């Protein structure tokens, strides 16, 4: 069957190199942002989050950068591994009547051996 991310922008990275995935968000009032990883046939999986009062947060091999001035979010993956191949989505949280998550377009990361 058709896999997730078939028509999404693709980033190809050599194994062992660093990956940078970018995301533009829409709402200047958003106060919380999350990166998700989605492998084929699975639901999105939480990777890392950041609040709007921060501009950088580090996890294990991943770093998220937030630039509120230009409403830009990035995910950096160090020493990219084959298991990192997936589709990556950013999401912003918005309070509009009810509290909800708005997902970005997504980027497919392909790790080359």
């Amino acid at each position: 069957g058709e896999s997730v991310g078939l028509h999404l922008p693709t980033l190809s990275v050599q194994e062992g190199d660093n990956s940078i995935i970018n995301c533009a968000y829409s709402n200047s009032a958003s106060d919380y942002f999350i990166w998700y990883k989605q492998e084929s046939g699975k639901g999105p999986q939480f990777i890392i989050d950041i609040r709007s009062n921060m501009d950088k947060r580090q996890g294990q091999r991943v770093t998220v950068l937030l630039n509120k001035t230009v409403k830009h979010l990035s995910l950096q993956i160090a020493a990219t591994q084959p298991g990192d191949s997936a589709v990556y989505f950013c999401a912003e949280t918005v309070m509009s009547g009810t509290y909800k998550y708005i997902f970005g377009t997504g980027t497919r990361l392909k790790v080359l051996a």
Partner: protein
Amino acid sequence: SAVISQKPSRDICQRGTSLTIQCQVDSQVTMMFWYRQQPGQSLTLIATANQGSEATYESGFVIDKFPISRPNLTFSTLTVSNMSPEDSSIYLCSVEKRDRLNYEQYFGPGTRLTVT
């Protein structure tokens, strides 16, 4: 964390029929969400389903087409009514879990629906 299961995992349905998708969580949660993910695209929020209140639908989605039930804090259903081929998609439920400092959203594996 939260472990979420969905039934069915996939189905092929004829146009004009309806399908009810079940979402079961292994712990009690207040907020549950239903998303649609069309092939090669991102997730689009259909509605937010909080226990004890009517579901809140996003623009472009209506209750008659996507009725939702939320009978308790661990279970929800989404029905796709009077299906057409345009409803072919992956349907995902998710939950939000919060503690004092953090909140995370967990997703089910999705239900892949094909309408012929």
